[in-house]
């Protein structure tokens, strides 16, 4: 989930909360203990305090044994200890979900109610999103691209009532990258004309974009427009050096001439690097640009791996 929020007095925040689940073996653990498991959960949680130029992040691991972490389908729930995403209302297949999201670290805490404003978006071919040429380098992938968000953020003991919009992706995969791929740059952008744009660019080892890069536009009415790699022109306009000296892009010009889109994307806070078991940059971005000849702005999240 990548979200942009603001308080009533215009303090701006972003948050990201991801739960990963990995199965370590294809066979079920044959152990009989309540702790026996072959599933590992990992979660990343970040809050970007845009107004104060600060970034908070944390990582957690757990097994699903002893119910320390888990996922359930009926009455949807995913949790890793006390970090959780829970569907709060029973619903029929046609209802849009209402979800409670809670996570906290020593310094930052969130507790939101999310209500989807648009129907589910199945990414790729009916939800199967191919990420590379090999079999298995694909994911089942769906998104809710616009969820109305209300709740509170507590930072360093200070509580803020906030409201805004969230974006939720859910993805299942076996492996993420093929051998000739090095990483990806992933854009999830919410434009203020109630359009959402998602684009991911798989990066090859030589830095060039892979053919499997693609994207989608979600129109105000929920209708979709697929975007192919060839239609997109993505230029890096700025860079940022991490404390460890790794160079990350820190500004982009994303143009999709076929859709009349020309956006300038800049990080809301330059250091939104997650220094966790696998280092990556994922953070809130500001968008200014032109769509169909009109000025447009927006907020979004960019995720960059493999640097």
């Amino acid at each position: 989930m990548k979200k942009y929020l603001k308080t009533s007095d215009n303090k701006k925040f972003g948050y990201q909360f991801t739960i990963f689940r990995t199965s370590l073996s294809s066979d079920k653990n044959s152990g009989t203990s309540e702790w026996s498991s072959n599933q590992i959960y990992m979660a990343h949680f970040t809050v970007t305090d845009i107004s104060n130029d600060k970034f908070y992040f944390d990582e957690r691991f757990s097994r699903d044994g002893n119910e320390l972490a888990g996922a359930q389908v009926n009455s949807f729930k995913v949790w890793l200890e006390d970090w959780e995403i829970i569907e709060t209302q029973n619903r029929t297949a046609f209802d849009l979900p209402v979800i409670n999201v809670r996570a906290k670290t020593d310094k930052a805490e969130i507790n939101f109610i999310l209500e989807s404003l648009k129907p589910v978006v199945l990414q790729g071919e009916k939800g199967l999103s191919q990420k590379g040429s090999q079999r298995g380098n694909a994911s089942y992938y769906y998104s809710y691209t616009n969820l109305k968000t209300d709740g509170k953020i507590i930072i360093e003991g200070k509580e803020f009532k906030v409201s805004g919009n969230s974006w939720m992706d859910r993805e299942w995969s076996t492996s993420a990258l093929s051998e000739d791929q090095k990483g990806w740059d992933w854009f999830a952008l919410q434009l203020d004309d109630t359009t959402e744009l998602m684009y991911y660019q798989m990066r090859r080892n030589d830095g060039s974009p892979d053919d499997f890069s693609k994207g989608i536009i979600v129109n105000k009415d929920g209708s979709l427009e697929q975007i192919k790699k060839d239609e997109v022109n993505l230029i890096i306009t700025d860079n940022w050096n991490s404390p460890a000296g790794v160079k990350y892009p820190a500004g982009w010009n994303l143009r999709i001439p076929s859709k009349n889109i020309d956006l300038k994307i800049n990080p809301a806070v330059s250091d939104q690097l997650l220094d966790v078991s696998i280092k990556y940059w994922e953070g809130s971005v500001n968008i200014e640009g032109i769509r169909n000849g009109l000025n447009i702005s927006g907020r979004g999240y960019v995720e960059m791996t493999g640097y």
Partner: protein
Amino acid sequence: MNSLTKSSLRYLFKHPWQFGLSVLGIAMGVAIVVSIDIANFSSSRAFNLSLDAVAGKATHQIIGNSDGIPDSFYRSLRIDNGIKNIAPVIESYVSIPDSGRRVFKLLGVDLFAERPFRDYLSETGSSIDGVFKDLFTKPNSIILSEDNLKKLNRTIGDSILVQINGKEKFLVISGFIKEDENNRSALENLFITDIASAQQLTEKKDHIDYIDVIIKNESEEKMLVDLLPDGFVLQQSGLRSQTAEQMLDAFNINLTSLSLLALIVGLFLIYNTMTFSVIQRRVLIGTLRSIGVTSGEISGLILKEALIIGILGTIAGFAAAYFISKFLLTIVSQTINDLYYVVSVREIYISPAIIIKGIALGVIATLLSALKPAKEASGVHPRSAMIRSEQESSLLKKIPRMTFAGMLFIIAGAVTLIIPSKNVWLSYFGILPVIIGFALLTPVVIILVEKIFSPLYKKLFGITGKMSSRSILQNISRTYISIAALALAVAATVGVGTMVSSFRSTVIDWLETRLNADVFISAPSLISRRNDAVLNEDILDKIKAIDEVRDFNFYREVELLQEGKRYHLLASGLSKRSYSGFKFKEGDPDEAWKRFEDGEIFLSEPFAYRYDLNVGSMLTLKTDNGMRDFKVAGIYYDYASDQGLITIQYEHFKKFWNAKGFSGISVFVKDENSIGTVKDKIQSLETGGQQLIVRTYKFLRDSSVEIFDRTFLIAKVLQILSVIVAFIGILSSLMSLQLERKRELGILRANGLLPSQLFLMVNLQTLLMGFTAGLIALPLGNILAAILIYIINKRSFGWTMQFDILPGILAEAMILALVAAVLAGIYPGYKMSRTSPVNALREE
């Protein structure tokens, strides 16, 4: 080096026997004390390291009930209360049958919760990466140190057959951790496994053993304490090792004191040697004084000599300690494993404290024991330079005063000993004046013996005989010290021997009354004196179903950790038949049993002593429903544990504690002839993999006595070592004595005494000295035994023991004294008999 020092050094080297034996005596004393210290320290350090390794950076532990902590409680701390710095732990021991029963600690952890706790798991993460998956996904996978992997002669993927709680299980090696300086000691005896595997292996269904916690401040602590249900406690990490150390306190003090005995004998030796060297050098010292050497310089010279002996002895002692301690360590750790807890010690650890203590004892004590000779030397009148030989009369005059002082010392010791106190050191402090007192009484005993034996010797051996007896008296200032030293060493043997034998017969009597069933069943345990393994409850039903079984007892032992103490609670399901096995120290038996059945508790004697409890006292115990008071119905004699036991009826136990399973079952058979049949039937019961140790009464009795003997093996070893020191002492002083008499003996040779007659004379004399020493040692030894039994053991452990004066030990002691003396006389006798009369008469 100035000429004075040179002269004194040359004196030492000109008397290599005296010098060498003094160094040897100090070396032995230091070696024994230091090696006992090293053995004690190494075993407790090995144990602490293993605890530290397991505790990691945890500041506290949450200890649950008798059956541990439910998984759900841990989950609720993490999820409902969002507490992060906690980690679940299951701890157990496994032994490896095909590797000499080597014991490893099996540590079950949740790797995801480990990061803040155990460095060697998280920081070396990369080196265990490849196998981490198996550890997590395959039951019974373990990782171990690379070193252990090699020692067990296995590779990754191999399995190891282990015994855990009396069941055989296979563990699979999924990886190893490379050792480095930081984790070596932690990994020495460790198998790490996933918490799930540990739970399965130990059959702790839905429970973990404890939760490690890192707490940063008091508010966190308070918050956590508020979350704990009744019966749970939050305790500091260090407490576990502390309580373990407390268990060993008395044991260690007793070992240390035995080792000090050897040193005291060694110090006698120094005192002896230095006194001798002063007496021998009276003329020389007088000359030095005449030509202007001050008395201060003279005593400085003697102290310097003592210092040299002390330093050399200490160095040699440390060197010897290195070897002796390795040997003692195996005995000490065996005893600890028999009686207290599982520990595997493979390395020798030395602390600065041990080194300082060793040096202090070796050097400073040597200097102290040389103070009196030094003072004596400084008092040598310059006039002595003009006189050929000093008379012995000085000491003879002092004998009445010495005897009186000796009496005073003994009384002072007795007064110190009867001061009511639990302080064991105070008791040892009381022994010292008694020993000194007896040493001071030695001259008067020599006079008496001489009075009796002089005529007898004359009758038997003629004038030579008379001379040999007479010269003990003539040289009394020298002979009495040798005799006292030998007497002390022999007395120590008598004391320790009598104490051990008395203790042994007390324990055997007790075993014979207590073990009144016919067949005893338990699970294999790693601690011989305690059953830490648990039998499934259904085994009892199966045993009951055996035809020949008339009746049975069963019990469950649990350890209660409360307020930094470690209580052993024995829940007994006793048949009335077994009531007679309990002998009460306090409480009317009928009344006591009635109350016991109503839920009151019994205490074993050591427990009641340790915690000052009597019949009618209340004792608060940590039950699974919180703290509860229990009334003491009786105090019974028990020698099973020096830590003491609390006994409660099983029915009542179950009201307050959840612990399942039995620690032991004992069975009465209908017909004595069917004992073998019952044993076989039990052994062939279907137990679901549970191994049973089935022992008959006789076997259990014998093996208990065997453990007892093993426990006291170290006392025996120390005893032998102190006798060796004493032997060195007497040899040294006899050598000096005879060498000094060179002139006198030379005159005898010149007057026609045959070498063989001279040899006989010397040996008759040493024989009489040995006899005198034995005569003093017998009462002193029994007094020491009585002190050990009635005061030291009582104060250390709270045990009441019967005290037997054992003629066998007394006879042995007398023979020991005589043999030691005669052996010590052979060489000097031989040497003297070979002296040419010309040499002997020559001026020095």
